[in-house]
């Protein structure tokens, strides 16, 4: 099976600093992949290169076997969507306006909103259960709702692959869990999700695969249950943790330094 997205020996750096050193990874359809690694290990740079927003110094990205740098941007946008962190925008667009932006790759330079576009927008709002927010200002809803809006935009884009940069980093605990549930559901429907995260448990819960990056290199790549361990987390983050099992198969990692008192 040909991978949906493939990065081949990507090297990149800023100035004299090397950020990515010969990174090769394949992503397959319906996979939910978590990228794990310390700050500055090159996660964001790698995601931007996958999206074609940055050209790597060497190496190539292939989408279904085609060179991404040769694909028209609009065509690539119909397949691969970017979900940034739930930022605040300068202007108070409504949730519906933001989701409607997802239709841009499918329209002529000056599109009118036709019934076909409306159907996609409705569908995306319904899938993420945010239809009741449609008229609310994007600047006024919570961080979790903003993140859901951006994922809805990616769905309205008609994308089969979505790339997310730390989707849970600005969310409260409840929103984090609900977002992870949504992602698992979307991946179950055949969507390929590639996300970076700072929480090892987020890679364990729901992800099919974890990729660990350290100093611009892939240090581990495989099933989260096999790759995530006190040893690998220590190698990655320089902290000692121990695994806490709940007896029903779920695992969490607790730092040794902060035992509950």
């Amino acid at each position, binding site marked *: 099976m040909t991978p949906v997205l493939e990065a081949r020996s990507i090297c990149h750096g800023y100035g004299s600093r090397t950020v990515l050193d010969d990174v090769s990874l394949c992503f397959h359809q319906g996979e939910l992949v978590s990228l794990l690694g310390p700050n500055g290990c090159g996660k964001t740079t790698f995601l*931007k290169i996958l*999206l*074609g*927003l940055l050209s790597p110094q060497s190496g190539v990205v292939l989408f279904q076997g085609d060179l991404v740098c040769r694909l028209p*941007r*609009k*065509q*690539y*946008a*119909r397949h*691969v*969507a*970017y979900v*940034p962190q739930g*930022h*605040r*925008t*300068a*202007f*108070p*667009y*409504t949730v519906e*306006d*933001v989701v409607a*932006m*997802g239709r*841009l*790759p499918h*329209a002529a*330079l*000056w*599109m009118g*909103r036709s019934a076909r576009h409306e159907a996609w927008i409705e569908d995306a709002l319904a899938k993420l259960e945010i239809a009741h927010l449609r008229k609310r*200002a994007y*600047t*006024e809803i919570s961080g979790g709702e903003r993140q859901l809006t951006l994922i809805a935009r990616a769905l309205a*884009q008609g994308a089969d692959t979505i790339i997310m940069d730390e989707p849970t980093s600005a969310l409260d605990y409840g929103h984090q869990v609900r977002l992870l549930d949504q992602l698992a559901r979307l991946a179950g429907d055949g969507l390929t999700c590639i996300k970076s995260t700072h929480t090892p448990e987020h890679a364990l819960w729901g992800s099919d695969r974890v990729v660990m990056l350290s100093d611009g290199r892939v240090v581990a790549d495989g099933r989260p249950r096999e790759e995530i361990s006190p040893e690998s987390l220590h190698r990655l983050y320089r902290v000692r943790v121990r695994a806490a099992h709940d007896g029903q198969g779920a695992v969490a990692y607790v730092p040794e330094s902060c035992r509950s008192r």
Partner: protein
Amino acid sequence: MKPGRLIPLGLLVGAVSLVSLALGKYNLGLTETASFLVRACLGISGSDPTRQALLDNVLLQIRLPRVLAAMLIGASLSTVGTALQAVFTNPLVSPKTTGMLAGASFGTVLGVLIAEQWVVCQLLALVFGFVAVGLAVAISRMSRNESILMLVLGGIASDALFMALSMTAQYLADPYTKLPVIVHWLMGNLAMVQRTTVLIAAIPIVLGTAFLCLFGHQLNALSMGDDEARALGVPVRFVRLCVLLLSTLLVGLTVLLGGGSMVGWVGLIVPHAARMLIGPNNVALLPASAFIGASYLIVMDDISRLTFSFELPIGVITSLVGIPFFIFVLKNARKGWA
């Protein structure tokens, strides 16, 4: 967005223009003005030839060019302001902060200084508008990361440079013959506007403004940031270049119509007022800005020519009336920009 929301604003421009044509030292009734305009459009002459000649002179020769000029300047500066705010993802940007207004103004001042013909001033206004924006872009390119913020800073630097050059030109100008012309003109002056100039400038202004309005969807995406817009398939650099070039052209044209640098305020407050009224979606916001800006500047010009026995420059009125209007809009802003 339903296009129906723009119809009341279009009607507003029509109503304001009609009332403004009827208003003046020589008072004409609304019905007489309206029926004369209808007859003039249809090419039917009135019953009384002397009255006809009078109406023709007052309405078509004297008032219509002014009203049209105010309409065109207001509409184009407001649309440019809205588009630039989206391109720079910053609600504080206006035609002024990109240097284009100062550049065009300096061009005209230089024209007054070195030549007698008004055509030279007009050409120089256009040329220096583009030079100023080019400088802003050049400054932004000098920084290692080519960000939007750098472009705003480049624009501010370019604005400061051309303001300083205008000052120098004023300092050097003959204080009896040329300085009064320059100062009067910088404040904005529609009294000297000529019918032929208005009619010639109207074509590119209307086309340019309409063209800018077509970028609504792209500008929505662009205002979310470059990376997101690119990931949505928008050719970011191309759209930004188109908007910058069109804006510079439009601002240059308003300056040569007699806009003057102080009228630039319109390009900051009208976009905000329009956003309050119909929301931030650029698809509707761009044409709405054009309509509201047109109405606003026509009313400002009415105030400037009717309130006092002498004519107060329109730039002064725009700022004086604009500030309380701006405060009113800000107070009533329910949706934050932050």
